[in-house]
């Protein structure tokens, strides 16, 4: 079953630009970007037990760095991308040292405070970040001379990056390091007694999550060709967290489904009503109260029950 479904989904994803119009291709690209972002957040939330409310920092900082380096300092896309990812990862390492002094709610509050500080900087330091106007007039890179300006070519680029990200994160989690991460999430004291270093395991995961958050930020700024402080806001972090939790935090595929749902909802809802933030809040309440384990585990449970019933 799995071996039939997998190539089918892959073929469908690759052939999507031939099947749909530009609007849907662009929507799919956005979903892929949101999926990488949610997956990276889920490394922390689902597998590390570290609920971060400041993950937008990595997306935003990588996006801002790339935007400023290419537009203001005239760097090429290649070197700008390397510098922004290296910078974002280094920032994640510093933030990790601060935030991981605490666990649980303290961790959440520190990540929130740190990301709010960055958001404030993006708004107020208008000499550098252009403040509320954002940084506009950006370009997309041309890897190996291929232009990404078309909807389809950008989609394939995003698909390639997203597949690679998914693969890398799957390997990360199924490795022995991933197992020790889950051990630290569930029983940190026993893991420490077994000779593992829980802090180091959490810190490395934090940096890794920041790295992939930065990658999604690069794609984000390439796609939009524009960056604004709202990308760094709590709303942005909260949307990703909602995607992770709605989809199912302790699963690999859950965040992808959740991120897609949040994005689709945002796109369709904003066509009819102005009140996206209020809707987001209501969905938060609904998901936490009604579906605390998320959609994917809920569906898996349902499928299991149906199968058992048919037998």
């Amino acid at each position, binding site marked *: 079953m799995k071996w039939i479904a997998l190539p089918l989904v892959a073929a469908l994803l690759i052939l999507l630009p031939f099947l749909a119009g530009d609007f849907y291709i662009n929507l799919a690209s956005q979903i892929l970007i949101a999926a990488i972002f949610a997956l990276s957040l889920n490394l922390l939330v689902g597998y590390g037990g570290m609920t971060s409310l400041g993950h937008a920092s990595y997306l935003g900082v990588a996006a801002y760095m790339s935007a400023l380096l290419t537009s203001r300092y005239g760097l090429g896309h290649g070197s700008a991308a390397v510098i922004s990812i290296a910078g974002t990862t280094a920032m994640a390492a510093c933030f990790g040292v601060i935030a991981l002094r605490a666990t649980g709610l303290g961790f959440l*509050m520190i990540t*929130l405070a740190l990301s709010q500080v960055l958001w404030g900087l993006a708004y107020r330091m208008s000499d550098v970040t252009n403040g509320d106007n954002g940084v506009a007039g950006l370009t997309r890179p041309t890897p190996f001379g291929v232009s990404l300006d078309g909807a389809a070519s950008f989609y394939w680029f995003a698909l390639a990056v997203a597949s690679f990200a998914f693969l890398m994160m799957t390997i990360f989690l199924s490795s022995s390091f991933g197992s020790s991460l889950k051990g630290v999430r569930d029983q940190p004291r026993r893991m420490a007694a077994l000779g593992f270093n829980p802090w180091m395991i959490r810190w490395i995961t934090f940096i890794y999550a920041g790295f992939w958050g930065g990658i999604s930020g690069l794609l984000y700024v390439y796609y939009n060709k524009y960056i604004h402080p709202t990308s760094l806001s*709590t709303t942005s972090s909260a949307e990703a967290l909602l995607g992770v939790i709605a989809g199912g935090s302790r699963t690999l595929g859950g965040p992808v489904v959740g991120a897609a749902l949040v994005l689709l909802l945002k796109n369709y809802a904003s066509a009819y009503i102005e*009140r996206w933030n*209020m809707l987001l809040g209501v969905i938060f*309440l609904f998901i936490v109260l009604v579906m605390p384990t998320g959609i994917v585990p809920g569906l898996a449970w349902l499928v299991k029950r149906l199968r058992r019933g048919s037998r």
Partner: protein
Amino acid sequence: MQFWIIQGLNSLSLGGLLFLLSSGFSLIFGLMRLANLTHGAFFMLGTYLGATALRSYSGLNIWVTAIGAGIAVAAIGGLFERLVLTRLKTNPLGQVLVTLGMSFIISDACLMLWGGDSIPVPTPQNLQSPTRFFGFVFPTYRLVLVGCAIGAAIVLYYLLERTRLGAMIRAGVDDGQMARAVGIPVSNLFTLVFCLGVGIAGAGGVLGGPILSAYPGLDGDMLPLALIVVILGGIGSLLGAFIGSFIIGFIYTFGTALFPELAYIILFLPMIFVIAFRPQGLFGRVGA
């Protein structure tokens, strides 16, 4: 000299406001182990309610308005606690997420009801004339605000340390299960403390109105300040919230006055410092 004195007074009044905001946050966290991310939104709701009341009835006293708005906000908070938070007692992460959801709902509702323009709140008339003191001029309202925060701190201290109710709350903070076992109605205390905490924030919102004015995004500006205050001062500690508020008040005011672009970075330096050397905060007994 005038600059330093005025900025010093501004720092004190911002510190006083921050205390009204963060004392409730700290109390709620201490007793309920709940990071109430709705706190900034409740503060903003208080400011908007106060702005509307004071602008439509010019004879209205700001103190009465503050108490009224505090009660209104406390009522909304109480409903939220009873209807939503109690259902999630075993799920601390879920609790934080619903408070975040609630803060989005409240701030968007404020945007819908009051629009996107900032609404100035009039300073009470009898406090408009400046106070002269040793040849320096002080805005009277800010002086009164500092006094107000100190008054609130004394009342809260008395309530927590000298009354039976305070003893029950402290027992709940120290060991909720034992408190329950000896017959203290901890779950009713939760509701009470939540109402009290958000009520103070709502009243603080009204009192802060003449300085800050009501604008969309006020909640997002105030919440991180409250978070930094409680991380700095120690979670669940009233004294920590008090000292932390004034430290942050000074750093933020002087930071914005002297290095406007770097104010946010300067703001979080003391937090890093405290987290690095004393993760439980200056006056906290336990880590978060």
